[in-house]
């Protein structure tokens, strides 16, 4: 009867006493991994694995997100860097092309026994009636009207208006341009006159003279303006069918007038240059 009425209290007392005994025993003897611990750890291991995997995946996803945020920032910086490098590359490429052009100019300079003044093209006038260039050198640099202007591989025109620090170049293809020339192969002389977008025409070559398409035309040196032997262009077409004494000859200048950026102005013949090359006619 007593136990029936107080069995809950007795149970509680037993549990507490049992816990105290268990604790005391473990404190005193340090029983290590007992059966209870073994069972609990055995049951807890898969749960621990599951939680670790779950938390690991959440952590991984979070870290990937953080990484992505960093990646976006990194990507933005890299794009900016690419932009800067591209701009730099364009500058270098421009420098390279300029160097190539200057090398070609230098080769022109070396091919002719004259002193030259290099100039940069600062403007172009390619109107219907006028084909001129504007360069950044003038009287202050020793330039004078009439001086021949060259660009690889040969003559492109002559100076007309020269100011202190700039000058105008009348191109070969200008309608007002006339240059004494000769056919390199046959030494036949004529006058190359500008014909605008069609290039030039060579005048005053009679029908009995030997001229063919493909012939190279150089300056004849018969005027005081251009020294002898400057490359001018190549004959593109020869027409002998028309009336009159002279052939109609078309000449394509060697220089590409649309792509000129630097030119050489022939200022004077070198002192040790051969007499024939020092002066034209």
């Amino acid at each position, binding site marked *: 009867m007593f136990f029936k009425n107080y069995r809950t209290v007795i149970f509680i007392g037993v549990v507490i006493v049992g816990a*105290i005994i268990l604790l005391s025993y473990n404190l005193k003897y340090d029983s290590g991994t007992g059966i209870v611990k073994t069972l*609990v750890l055995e049951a*807890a291991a898969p749960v621990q694995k599951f*939680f670790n995997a779950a938390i690991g995946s959440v952590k991984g996803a979070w870290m990937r997100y953080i990484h992505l945020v960093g990646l976006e920032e990194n990507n933005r910086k890299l794009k900016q860097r690419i932009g800067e490098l591209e701009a730099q590359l364009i500058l270098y490429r421009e420098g390279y092309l300029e160097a190539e052009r200057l090398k070609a100019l230098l080769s022109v300079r070396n091919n002719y026994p004259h002193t030259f003044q290099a100039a940069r093209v600062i403007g172009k006038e390619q109107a219907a009636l006028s084909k001129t260039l504007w360069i950044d050198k003038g009287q202050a640099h020793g330039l004078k009207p009439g001086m021949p202007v060259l660009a690889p591989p040969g003559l492109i025109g002559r100076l007309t208006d020269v100011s202190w620090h700039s000058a105008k170049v009348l191109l070969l293809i200008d309608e007002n341009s006339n240059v004494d020339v000769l056919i390199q192969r046959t030494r036949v002389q004529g006058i190359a006159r500008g014909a605008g977008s069609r290039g030039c025409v060579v005048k005053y070559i009679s029908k009995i003279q030997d001229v063919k398409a493909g012939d190279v035309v150089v300056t004849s040196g018969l005027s005081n303006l251009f020294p002898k032997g400057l490359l001018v262009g190549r004959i593109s077409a020869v027409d002998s069918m028309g009336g009159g004494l002279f052939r109609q000859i078309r000449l394509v200048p060697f220089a590409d007038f649309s792509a000129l950026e630097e030119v050489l102005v022939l200022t004077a013949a070198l002192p040790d240059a051969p007499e024939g090359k020092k002066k034209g006619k």
Partner: protein
Amino acid sequence: MIFYVLLPFAAVLLVVFQTTLADVLFNGWLTLELSLVVVIYAGFHLDLVKGMIAAFVLGLVFDSVAGAPLGLFAFLYLLADLLAFFVSFRIVSEKLYLVAGFALVCSLLESLALVFLYRFAFEIDLLDDLLFVFIPQALLISILSVGFFYAMRRVEGLMYGETMQSSQRAGAFRISPEA
């Protein structure tokens, strides 16, 4: 009966969960002792026998997982459950600030018991940890207990239609005749 069958598994689940979570959140600085909150809840809401058994099992599992001397937390949890049981006659668990205060006191008492036990049994002085470990941990448990009691009240409301008031539970009838 299902309570006694599921109890060990639930205890393992809870203890492992709190250990893993504490490791992630506090990196070993604090212990996220959800098991103590559950013991207090059991003291407030379960009959004495069930509460004591739950406290004992949770304590044993916690001892095993935490590497404490077997029986240490089992004994402390039994005392906490018993204390909660008697306190539940005086305070109602619906007043969450009282629950928070009680959880804070329980946690501090548990910490003090640990300090004394380690001091006399192992000659290890844990007093230095009191300010930076045990007090923050007690505050954390206090906050957790509010959330846990509130959540359990909502669960009870969902399961039984209405929440059972402490006043309905308070009394000698909570001492279960089954043992």
